[in-house]
């Protein structure tokens, strides 16, 4: 939005309707002047002031120091966030390394056609959907259950110890997590020690496509569930105690209290986190999958993001990969918007 866009002046929802108290900078614009009498048509400046709003000229003059704070971050966002968004045009244009970074000529939906008719793309597409679905189905409810269990503990110290330990994996680098996982499931690792302990034969987990999803989701559970409880634990403390007493008077047992008082109490938190999880559904842990996968298990372990990394960066098919990336981002955006819409309609909780 341009700084001088007149539309933004009147439609900006964040500007309060009451006259603003400027942070100390003396107001030279004669705020509070009585509205001009009928007759002459008030100038734009005056009309704005009557509505308790300031024009851009006045605002910039008054708060230029504050606006100077915005300059560097806005340049950052423009260069590193918005230029790449525009850079997605290469999905519709032929890109030549060393040529125009925004592509050389229009080719329409050529690259989209190419991946839609590529069998390998659909393999990685369904891998993504399955892996994302499993992750969502398992990693979304578990923190809620863990938070409810922690909430029933009476010993503060024990609760604190469990929290401290379960938060820890969240702070590990994904490289460490992948290294640990690969060691645990290696032929001599702990998992195979257990398998042998039960008299089975050691399994080469990372060479059998059938195991990848379980391994990935387990590592995701290990890494995220503890930290995921934080917001729920905070939400649990806000549930009104009187509701519990009322439920008790009505003869509700512990389980019924949890079901009818606690869970509805933390529902807004649940919905917000669900929407966010759905939004990242298509991106399923790109870095972790990249670190864990190997060609022997591509049939289950290759997802859209890792596939586009390989064809894009390693094989330098930039436009083709950008088309896939754009497709993935758009699905993500549509998912988060529809989840938000559904949630607002159904339970009245939403991100915006």
């Amino acid at each position: 939005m341009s700084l001088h866009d007149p539309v933004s002046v009147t439609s900006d929802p964040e500007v309060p309707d009451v006259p603003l108290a400027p942070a100390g900078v003396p107001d030279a614009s004669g705020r509070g002047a009585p509205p001009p009498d009928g007759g002459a048509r008030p100038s734009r400046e005056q009309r704005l002031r009557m509505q308790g709003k300031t024009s851009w000229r006045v605002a910039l003059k008054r708060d230029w120091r504050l606006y100077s704070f915005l300059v560097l971050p806005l340049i950052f966002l423009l260069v590193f966030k918005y230029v790449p968004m525009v850079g997605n045009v290469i999905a519709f244009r032929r890109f030549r390394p060393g040529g125009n970074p925004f592509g050389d000529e229009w080719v329409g939906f050529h690259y989209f056609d190419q991946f839609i008719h590529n069998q390998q793309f659909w393999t990685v597409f369904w891998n993504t959907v399955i892996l994302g679905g499993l992750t969502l189905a398992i990693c979304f409810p578990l923190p809620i259950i863990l938070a409810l269990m922690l909430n029933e503990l009476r010993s503060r110290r024990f609760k604190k110890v469990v929290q401290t330990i379960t938060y820890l994996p969240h702070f590990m680098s994904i490289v460490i997590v992948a290294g640990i996982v690969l060691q645990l499931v290696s032929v001599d690792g702990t998992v195979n020690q257990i398998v042998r302990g039960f008299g089975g034969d050691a399994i080469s987990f990372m060479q059998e496509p059938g195991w990848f999803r379980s391994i990935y989701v387990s590592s995701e559970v290990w890494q995220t569930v503890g930290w995921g409880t934080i917001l729920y634990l905070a939400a649990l403390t806000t549930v009104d105690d009187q509701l519990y007493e009322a439920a008790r008077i009505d003869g509700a047992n512990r389980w019924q209290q949890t079901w009818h008082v606690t869970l509805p109490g933390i529902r807004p938190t649940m919905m917000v986190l669900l929407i966010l999880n759905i939004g990242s559904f298509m991106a399923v842990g790109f870095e972790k999958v990249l670190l864990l996968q190997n060609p022997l298990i591509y049939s289950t372990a290759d997802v859209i993001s890792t596939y586009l990394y390989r064809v894009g960066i390693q094989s330098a098919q930039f436009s083709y990969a950008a088309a896939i990336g754009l497709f993935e981002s758009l699905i993500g955006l549509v998912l988060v918007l529809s989840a938000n819409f559904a949630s607002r309609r159904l339970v009245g909780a939403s991100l915006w």
Partner: protein
Amino acid sequence: MVTETSTPDVTAVRAASLGVKDTRGYAIFRVVNAVVLTLVAAITLYPFINLVAKSFSSEGHIAAGQVNLIPRGFNVTTFDAVVSDPMFWENYKNTVVYTVVGTIISMALTTTYAYALSRPNLKGRGAFTGIALFTMFFSGGLIPNYILVANVLHMRNTMWAIVLPGAISVFNLLVMKSFFENFPSELEEAAALDGMTTYGVFLKIVLPLSKAVLATMTLFYAVSMWNSWFGAFLYLDKKDLFPVTVYLRNLIAATTGSQEITGSQADAVQIGANVQSVTMLLTVLPIVCFYPFVQKYFVSGVMLGSVKG
């Protein structure tokens, strides 16, 4: 403000205030609950213990699948082997430099932007907030980012490719913004009456009174910078520029052949399992050492963010 997250023990209070004795079923539940939570904690902790055990074990015992909780064939020669590699220290030093520089840049950008957005007299703050928010839900994607950094800005094999692209975390920005919004505006108004400019107010009043939130955000940025690897993996190909995470990644990829595996190399999995473990341990050490003391800041940072959703 950062406080200990003392979540009041609702359950205990509830039980005590009503003076009701637990039912038999609930008493059993409490025991089961405590046992399950103990198991959860033990399982979460196990991989770390296993890592430590392997670090001090001999390769032979690891390959035989005998190492789980305690080291077998105790030795510290693996540590000698790892720390005697000059490249390890070179890369470790790089990680420290990237973390410090990256955190400073991130903090400078985030703090100033968040402060400006938090002032109600900033005209257009809705639009400026929206510009940042939108990037949370739609991003350029890998390929356009790569072209920007490598082909347009020519940042390949420079530190800037690592520290700049992710400099502002929108989540951290929102946390800081909501913190600054709660800042008593009277202080600033009084300072302004004394002739202080916005710059003076920000540097001499706002920042000194925000030490706790600044510490929290610094930790968030520093940890994510310390842990990051993909940017370096993507944009650097000179070994002496790698952060230690990429050093570790290459070690793991080389020993497990997770990238270029062939059938015959699959047996090579155990080779260097102890070397890997030691490298992982040394990489993670600073975080594990600091973690118990700063955990409450992390938690409070998330809470702060959740206030405004």
